[in-house]
């Protein structure tokens, strides 16, 4: 079975080369960096870390090609994005209000033991907002599949064929960071799947894309919705994990109350911290967090798997 490795951000602490070498891969390595968008072709440094064996799947470039050549798909894509933006706007309003309610309830003095019940109920309201968003998003995907089936696009089909052929020649795949929305969209449109023997090394947005629930977060963002937001489903190679790249830079990790709300909200997931230098290995198809992985526990503190 294949190995999956999630890394910390690669901008300042570059470990992807050593990590790929540790896999003993001798053949070609597929590169997915569509999250870089128009900088996708500036892949020289990444290819260098892969000893020149990297093959760029050029998913962003292919997406631009599809949008240019397939007017039916392009129109459907615009309509989908507009509807998704609207859905996200309403989700953001509801979510922020629900999260604010959790904090307000938790700060209220409780003399007669109503507080904990009220807080759990408020948390459930947050989860309900998340469920509503996920259901609406599913419906949206369903409607776009009905109006513009990806399988019927000749251009997409052609690219899928070429991507499949390229991937079949590769022993491993690396998935870089960038814009996670763009990355997910390209993976979905081109139906990029990885073979059972292909190891995958991913970081930042790439790591998020491998999970089943992609959660957007930035506690230091100056404005907008400051609560973490469910965004979309990932490719699901690592179910049960919410990947949190740049955690130290993007999360108020010392605000244990806030972190606890985040952990309890996604109670069925492990909130995995991926800071600079992190290397988290999932060998032989494993999906459980390995010993040494850092995560946010239900109390809102950073814990390490295997350390009591």
């Amino acid at each position, binding site marked *: 079975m294949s190995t999956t490795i999630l890394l910390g*951000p690669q901008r300042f602490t570059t470990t992807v080369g050593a990590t790929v070498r540790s896999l003993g891969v001798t053949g070609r390595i597929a590169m997915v960096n569509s999250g870089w968008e128009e900088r996708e072709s500036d892949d020289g440094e990444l290819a260098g870390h892969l000893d020149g064996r990297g093959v760029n799947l050029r998913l962003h470039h292919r997406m631009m090609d599809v949008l240019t050549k397939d007017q039916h798909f392009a129109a459907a894509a*615009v309509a989908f994005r507009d509807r998704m933006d609207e859905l996200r706007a309403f989700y953001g309003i509801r979510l922020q209000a629900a999260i604010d309610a959790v904090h307000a309830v938790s700060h209220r003095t409780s003399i007669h033991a109503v507080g904990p019940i009220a807080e759990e109920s408020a948390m459930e309201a947050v989860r309900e907002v998340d469920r509503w968003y996920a259901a609406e998003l599913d419906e949206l995907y369903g409607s776009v599949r009905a109006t513009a089936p990806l399988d019927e696009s000749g251009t997409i089909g052609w690219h899928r064929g070429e991507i499949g052929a390229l991937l079949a020649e590769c022993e491993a795949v690396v998935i870089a960071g*960038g*814009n996670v929305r763009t990355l997910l969209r390209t993976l979905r449109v081109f139906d990029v799947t990885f073979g059972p023997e292909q190891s995958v090394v991913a970081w930042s947005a790439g790591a998020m894309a491998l999970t089943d629930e992609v959660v*957007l977060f930035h506690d230091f963002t100056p404005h907008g919705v400051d609560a973490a937001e469910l*965004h979309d489903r990932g490719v699901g190679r690592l179910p049960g994990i919410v990947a949190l790249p740049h955690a130290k830079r993007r999360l108020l990790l010392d605000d244990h109350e806030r972190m606890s709300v985040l952990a309890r909200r996604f109670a069925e997931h492990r909130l995995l911290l991926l800071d600079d230098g992190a290397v988290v290995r999932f060998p032989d198809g494993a999906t459980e967090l390995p010993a040494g992985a850092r995560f946010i526990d239900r109390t809102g503190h950073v814990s390490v798997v295997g350390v009591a």
Partner: protein
Amino acid sequence: MERLAVNRLRERLPLDGPTIDRFVGRYGCPIIEGERATFLYRGDVDEVWVRHRVVGLPDPLPLKRIGESDLWAVTTVLPEGSRVEYQIEIRKGEHYERFNDPLNPRLAHSPMGSSSVCAAIGYRVPEWVAHDPEARPGTLVEEQVHSKALRRDQPVQIYLPARFNRAQRYPLLVVHDGTDYLQFAAMKTVLDNLIHRLDVDPLVAVFVPPRDRLKEYPNHAPHARFIARELVPLLTERLPLVDTPEARCLMGSSFGGIASLSTAVRYPGFFGSLMLQSASLVFTDIGFDHGGGPAFDPVVKFVNRFREKPSAVVDRLFMSCGVYEPLITPNRSMVPVFRHAGMTVRYTESRDGHNWENWRDRLGDGLAWLFPGPQKFVYE
């Protein structure tokens, strides 16, 4: 606290020319020491003043001659983070003259000319003001829009963000005093940088200059009709804009703030947000003696009427004002009025005056609040 440099100099009287030269050369002007600013002037004159418009400080602020020398000085308090625009005025016999501080190379520019700048300790020009070679530039397109409302062709400049793509949809920002915002607040560079830094969503901005500002900006029906019924529909038809109120914002400073607010009042619900910078929100609680001169008459009428019947004409309102400008009190007073009307208001103050660099420095906060960028989507 260490003694001020100018006081140490005074201990060395009498002063000769080379000593003064070395002093000025070493310290420059104004001399910032903690929260004190010392202004200097050198010349054979009878009187010297610092002319500024800082509410709370004497204006003119007289300088005193140091001993029998030709060096004049005055020290004033200048709290951390302050930024003051000023000029020097001199009297020689019956002759008065006013000019920028010859000992201070730092200037600010405006439609009225230039001024010297005194930046206190802690003031920094935001880093997103300077050209960033990494930031892809947007483009400015000049157009003439025929307006039936204004009965003329109105020039506008349309900003299209970098990577402008017709398959995307963009919010729209309408900028009053558009040419001045571009020229004196570096707004194109600011937009390029803020969008590049993911602080601000890519947006389309239309920069609209006035022709007769004092007539068109204080609650003028043809101007409002031009913006809401001609310009915005035209741009919405021609450009890939998000066609909802939430994605439409009016902004302006001073009288331009009144133009923005009054347009929103005339077309309530059509715009989702406003950005008012040092808006001329002058009002009276009794009588009509507002002290602003005839130009403010229509402003005061409009603001008084709004205060009588406040309404939520937009959802969100960003307001900024300098604490050193006379408009600080009316701006502060209007914040609760807007909030009670049901608008979400973000209000910020700065230790600055009624000038373009103050408005420039607040663009980051205002635009990022009104058009939050896609930071949450990017994990490099």
